[in-house]
Structures are given as C-alpha cells and as structure tokens.
C-alpha cells in the first residue's frame, strides 16, 4: 500500500479500506498468496488503535459508516469511492453491523481468510446474515458476529414502477480506469481457474478486449495508453499483461490493423504470460541470480502459455490458433535467436512482433525485485533501438517510437525552470523531443497535485522554447503513478 495515501486516511478509513481489500483479494487469490497476507497485516494494524476492551464495532446507517458509535466523516475522492463500494458490498448482503472482539487480534491468518471468504459467500444466501453468523460459530470464528441491516439503512430504492435506465457509457467515452480494472479482473478470473486446472471460457476477457479496441479507436485522447503506465510492484504479472495488451493495441492502430486482428492482438497481449500462472511466486520474485534450473523453468513460460491455451481455453480451433502463436513467439526474437529453442524456423507473426516490442518496453520500465531502479521510458527506448533487426522488427519499432515520442507518456521530466512534469501526450511527429506535459506541484504532504498541461514545443516571442527538458526519470523514483494524474 502506498505509504502517503494510506497515512492520509483516518484509522476508521484504514480499517474499512483494509476490509474491502481483503474481501476482494480472497476472491482472486489463495489464502497463502503474499497479497492476501499483506491485506491481513493491514487489517490487524488498522484495528489496533480502534480496538477497545468491548471490542470494535462497524455499523451501517443511512448511507454512513459508524466506527465504535462514531460517525465516519465523508471525504471526497478515492477514499469515499472505496467506502461507498464497501457499503454497497455489506448492504447487498443484508449486513448492518460487524462486531469484532479482541480475539481477532491474535487470530491465525487462516481464520481471517476464512472470515473474508464467508463474508463473500453469504451474498449468495437468502438468509445472509443469519447464515453468516452460524458459519462463524461453526468455524470457530467466535471473535466476530453480524447484525442484520436495519430498515431504512439501505440506499433509497427506485420508485415502484420506475424502470432501470442506466445507460452504459458510449464507446470512446468510457472511463479508462474502469476499463483497466475490468480487464485486470477478466485476466485474474482466467488465471485463477487455470491455476486450479479448471476449464475456462474467454468470454469476459474477449468482451474487455473488444471494449479496449473501441476505446483505442474512438477516444480523442489516448487515455487508455496513459493507464498502461500503471506499475504495481506487488501485482506485476497481471498489470504487466494488461499494459502489454494496451500497448499492442495502440501499435495495431498505428499499423491500421482490421478489427478482428486487433481483437486477436489484444487477447494475445492479455494471455502472453499465462504460463507464469503456474510458476511459484518465489521464483517470479527472486531477487538473487537464478540457478540454471530456475532459468530453464522460467523460460518454459512461453511454451506453457501455449499449452494452457490449448488445454484449458474453451475456444474453437481457429480462434485458439490465432491466440496461441504470439505468446509462444514473444521471446523468440525477430531473428529467431531467442527461446524456446525448438528449431522453429517460421518467421515471427505480425502479432508476435508487436507483442515482443510491447512486452520488452513494459518490462524494462517496470520496477522489479532484481532491478533496483526501473528505466525511464526514454532510456528503455534507447536500449531497444540497439536491438533493431535482431530482437525487434525495425519498422514496427520505428512506428512504436513515432507513436510514443522520445519521452513517452508517463515519463517524469525535470525542466530547466525547476519544475517537474509528467508527459501527458505524445509530441507531433515533426519533433519527437517535445511532448505535452502536466506540471506537478508539491502538495506539502510529500505528494503532488496536478497542475497545468503545457506543450513543450511552445515557443516564446524570441523563438526560443518556453521550457526545456534537463533530465528524465522513472515516476516510481518519486513514488508517482502517472495514471493518477493523467486520467
């Protein structure tokens, strides 16, 4: 959890945030997953200042949370949004209050996970709260009990006879954050089923890819491209796959690919690292050098992606054909000198060549456990240029650089007037060195707020540039998530 944002929350907000995160995480990951364990730590830490001798009570009333009888103040912004979601989560389940006793502070992790799992499952029960209470007793979770939601505590229902008229956002105007979140969810669902060897349909992933294709084509600003700057250290594999899908689609648009190929490209991007789902977490996040066996195990992932697509995806053969090849190819390199070494002599497919570029770019610009500092985007591109014709298709890489500019969207820049800025839009093709940027101003609490958007190509009366770039760095060096400022 990002330190500054979390610290800005009150204790009550931290508690609710932790509960919300935990109920989400257990839906996706097994209990022994590190992300779940992190949530458990946050939960117990958030409870510490609030726990009294009588325990800790979380109550819902008239759209507001009460913690130990004290109303939680409403605050605008992301925190409020998360709390609204958690409120809805509880009211849908008919839960009016959660009463925690001091025993929770010493409860084993498995018990806390079980609590969150039961909380999710009671949504499917008609007698949710009663069922939940029984389950808590039977499972030995005597440190928590629930109360039924009181009448009038729900959000106002629609008037009788009033028809639901919620119109979906039109294509080209969809929230890029929501599109990103739903795409991430679709991938997690597939990966979760594959990890337990369960057959899985691509329906929702395909729908999200089609949604992304529409946004790539129709959005006036490349907002989804801005989302591809998301870097989640603790959740690298999935965010990386979504980023690769987005980057690939934007390259595809530059090339003028038809819709059906764009869909295939997006699905390939999303599933290109599916083979990593079955790798141990410790291997993927090992900081020391890998042994040769570990290296061989890791390099199997592209062939494993193919194997999983063939084995477990419920798609007809023609669609499987198009989806399995690029993930197999994405480490083969343009000159076929990469891996897996199987004597493959067919030229890399077009989607495979696009995927390679998107994959390497996102990997180079991501902080990883074995790399102290992520590369800034301009350096990543500079390094990639050295692989023209060997690792990368030279023409497609050129298209990629033209699309992003020297300083791609999300790059953190230092300007000659002392300002720092985030690249927000690609430059014109005539001068790739001067993009549009969003000036960042310090908020006095260790973070930043978004300032004006300026065009670095703007010139003063004397023909000189109003602002010049003196340095570039990766936004993680200042703990910045560019998407927060750009969307």
């Amino acid at each position, binding site marked *: 959890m990002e330190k500054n944002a979390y610290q800005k929350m009150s204790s009550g907000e931290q508690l609710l945030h932790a509960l919300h995160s935990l109920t*989400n995480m257990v839906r996706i990951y097994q209990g022994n997953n590190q992300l779940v364990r992190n949530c458990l730590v946050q939960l117990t830490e958030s409870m510490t200042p609030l726990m009294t001798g009588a325990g800790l009570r979380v109550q819902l009333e008239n759209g507001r949370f009460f913690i130990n009888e004290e109303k939680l103040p409403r605050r605008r912004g992301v925190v409020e949004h998360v709390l609204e979601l958690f409120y809805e989560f509880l009211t*849908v389940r008919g839960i009016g209050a959660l009463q925690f006793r001091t025993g929770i502070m010493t409860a084993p992790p498995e018990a806390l996970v079980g609590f969150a799992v039961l909380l999710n499952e009671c949504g499917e029960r008609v007698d949710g709260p009663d069922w939940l209470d029984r389950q808590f007793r039977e499972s030995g979770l005597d440190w928590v009990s629930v109360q039924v939601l009181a009448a009038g505590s729900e959000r106002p229902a629609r008037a009788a006879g009033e028809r639901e008229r919620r119109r979906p956002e039109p294509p080209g105007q969809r929230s890029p954050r929501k599109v990103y979140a739903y795409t991430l969810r679709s991938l997690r669902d597939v990966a979760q089923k594959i990890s337990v060897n369960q057959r899985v349909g691509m329906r929702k992933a395909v729908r999200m890819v089609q949604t992304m294709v529409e946004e790539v084509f129709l959005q006036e600003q490349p907002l989804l491209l801005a989302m591809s700057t998301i870097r989640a250290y603790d959740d690298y594999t999935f965010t990386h796959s979504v980023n690769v899908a987005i980057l690939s689609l934007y390259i595809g648009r530059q090339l003028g690919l038809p819709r059906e190929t764009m869909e295939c490209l997006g699905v390939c991007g999303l599933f290109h690292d599916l083979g990593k789902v079955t790798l141990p977490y410790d291997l993927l996040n090992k900081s020391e050098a890998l042994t040769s066996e570990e290296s061989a195990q890791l390099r199997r992932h592209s062939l494993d992606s193919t194997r999983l697509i*063939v*084995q477990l995806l419920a798609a007809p053969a023609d669609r499987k054909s198009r989806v*399995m090849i690029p993930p197999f190819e994405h480490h083969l390199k343009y000159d076929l000198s990469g891996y897996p070494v199987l004597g493959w002599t067919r030229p890399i497919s077009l989607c495979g060549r696009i995927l390679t570029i998107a994959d390497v770019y996102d990997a180079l610009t991501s902080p990883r*456990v*074995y790399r102290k*500092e992520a590369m800034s985007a301009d350096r990543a591109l*500079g390094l990639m240029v050295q692989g023209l014709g060997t690792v990368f298709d030279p*023409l497609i890489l050129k298209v990629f650089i033209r699309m992003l500019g020297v300083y791609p969207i999300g790059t953190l820049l230092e300007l000659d007037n002392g300002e720092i800025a985030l690249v927000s839009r690609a430059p014109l093709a005539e001068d790739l060195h001067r993009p549009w940027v969003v000036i960042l101003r310090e908020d006095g609490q260790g973070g930043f707020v978004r300032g004006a958007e300026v065009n670095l190509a703007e010139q003063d009366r004397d023909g000189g540039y109003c602002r010049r770039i003196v340095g570039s760095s990766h936004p993680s060096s200042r703990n910045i998530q560019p998407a927060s400022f750009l969307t």
Partner: protein
Amino acid sequence: MNDVTAVDVPPDAPPAVPPAAGLKSAEILAAEKAVAAIMTGVKNFGVFAPEHASTINMLQGVLRAITQYGEIFGSLIFEVERQSLVFQGKPIYEGPPGDDNPAFVLFRAGISRFEFAPGLEENEVVRFFEIYNHYRVMADEPDDDLVSALWRAGLPHIFYEASYELWSEAETAVDYDALSALAPADSDGPEVTARPGKGWEALRVESSSDNYRKVSLALLPNLNEYCALSQAEQETLLAMVAEDTPAGGSEAAVRLMFMLLARESAAPVHEAALGFLQEVYLNFLANRAFQRAYFILDNIRKEAMVAKESKPWALPAFEKFYGVVLQPEIIDSLVAAWPHFGAMGAMEVKALGAILQQLPAKIAAQLVAQFNKVEIPEAQKLFVEIIVQHARRDREVLAAALHSEVEQLTLAMLAVIRELNDRNLVEQLLPKFRYDSRSQVRQETMRILASHNIY
C-alpha cells in the same frame, strides 16, 4: 344550387375529441408489427433450410416490416429489459425469463438497447439470426457471447448498447492510488544486477553510471529524420498487414502442436493437442483443404507409431482421435467431395487419395458401399485404385468389393485375386462367379479358375 356543406354542425356541438385512450399511434403499430416479425424470425430461423420457401418468406417479412417502419420513423430502437422489450417507455414484447425469450437472451448478454437503422439488408438480418441462434443457450464456460459475436460481425445497420461491466463495480474496483510502484524498503542495499542469461531481462542497471545516462533515446542524433517513414516503408507496412491472415495462424498452430506432441510427456497435453488437431483436421476436410488435412493425418500416424513404441500412456489419446475422424459421417463427407473433383487441383486430388489410403481397411469397405455415388470417371478411377490398395492388404475389403454390383469394381478385384495368385483364396471366393450375370466377370473368373486347375 345544392348546398355543398358536408356536415351541418349545430352551433352548440362539443368540440371534436382526440382518439379514445387505447388507440395506438401509427408509429407504435408499425413498431409492434416489426417486433412481431423479428420475434417470429428468431423463433423460426433455422427450422427450415435457407433455400426453403418458409425461410425466404420469413426473412423478407422481417425486412419488410423493419424497412416500412424505418422509411417513415427512422431507426427502430427499443430498450432491453430482463423479460421485455420496451418501446417509447412501454413494453412491446414480454415473456418469462429463459432461453426462449429474446428479451432475456439480449439482457443476459448485457444489452440494454437495440437498434435497427434504415438501410438494413437481408444478409444482416440473416447474420443476426445466426448469431442469436448460436448464443441463445449459454454454455457453462463460454468462449464468447452474443455481444462479442455481434461486435465481430460489424453489421452496419444493427446497433446495440452493451455494458462491459460484467461484474459488480464493488468487486472489481482498483484503488489506483494504493498501488505501489516501488520495491519494498528492504531492497535497499548493494546494487543488484539482473538475472544472468540472454535477453532483455538480463540488463544491468546502474543508475549512477554514465553508461546508463547515455542510453537515452533523446541522445540519438537525427532522431526526427530517422523516425520519418519513407514511402517504401509505408508500403511495406501495408503489405505486412495485408499478408497477415488467419490461415497462416492455423498452419503455424498445427506445427506447434506437433512440437508439443514430440516434447511433452503428460497425457493431458497429448489429449489437448490431439483434440485441437482433430478439430483443425475436420475443418480442413470440410473446406476441402486436403493437402493440409493429409499433413495432419500423416504426422499423427507417425506420432502414433512413436507412442506405440515408447509412450503407451499416450495411446488412448490417439485412439480417441481416430475414433472421431473415422466415423462414418466423416467418410461420407469425403465422398461428398467427389462431385467437386473437376474443380480440385491435382495436388488436392492426390492429397485426398492419400488420406483415403491412410484410412484403415474397414473404411475401405465403406468406400465400396459409396462407390455408386461417384459419377465422374476420373474420380471412379482413383476410387478403384484406393480400394485395390486396401484389398491387397485386407481380405474383407477384397470380398466386399468383389461382391459389388458395380462391374468395374468386381473386375478390379478379380485382377487383384489374379495378382495374389493364392489358390485357397481362389477356391474360397470365385466359384459362384462362374454363374455371374455379367459376361466379362464370368469370363475372367473362368480364366482365373483355369489357371489354378479348378474346374
């Protein structure tokens, strides 16, 4: 002069009243008619063959009703609810939730609004009904759905609004501000070099070194000129896109499957790879891509031989493959290819013949039964060659073909018997043919019997 006043209206008559409540506007009536035609279409499409009069009349009726609406009122738009279609705020179609209710089917797919725009063409109506029928019943783990199929079809006069929020927002929201882009604090320490080995992951990052700074793309001289696309490069890109076809993907996938079969040593992988190849093989047969089909069949035969030697655990997967591809219906479809013999290229014909020769002997018996469906002389000749090949190896095929009503086949089998020069065989099979009604058969039989001194 006659009074031409039509009506003498008394001065105290009440003003004219509007139509009584319950009378519908022309627009609503037209919309109801169109929706009723569409509902009839979704229920009956596929019941009869495409060329059947009922299908043709139904499609024309749907198109006519929608077009008539469109000519006067523009796009036909209705909202989709769980059990009903709503037109201008009122239900225009209602039914219980389920696969038989088109409103429910559309609603389940996430569609909230549906539109038929003016200019709708019959092929679009057909495609819409095909997609609807295919996805009317949702599978347990579907690969895609009605909305994604409509998206792919890109019908120019059919529009819909569908939500992409396939889960609740509460369950899917990402707290972007909470995502940490940083490594954990305890990773501060000595510089960690990246993993050894080839590839871009093996990158040593030393943030304080000059080498790191020098890598920036900003330092590349003449970057703007370098990145400009020449005319030739633009044409190359266009060609690249044009050459990227789904068929290429199938061939690569087939080769990849054989790589998996050769390398992987787990039964589920073999099952999956062979299942995939089976589907591709049958698709190739259906499309009369016999060379590609033969490639698969021949390589599977080789893999099956390897499995027999050294991978007995894989044999059930191969048996399952052959169990499917050797079904009578599949052979029938091969035979159905013969009328198109004249249009097939020489290589395709050769490949078809090779496929039939690879099939087990019991299939040849099926070929014998189908022989009279083959009318083109060149095809008959090839068919006979294939049956002869099998007959040489299998007595049952020989006997079945010998007893064929088709004289050409019987004579060919007699030639095989003569070639095999087996007295026992002659004694078993030939005596009755002394009395065959076909003179050439009788004569050839007598000659063979005589050559073995059987009278």
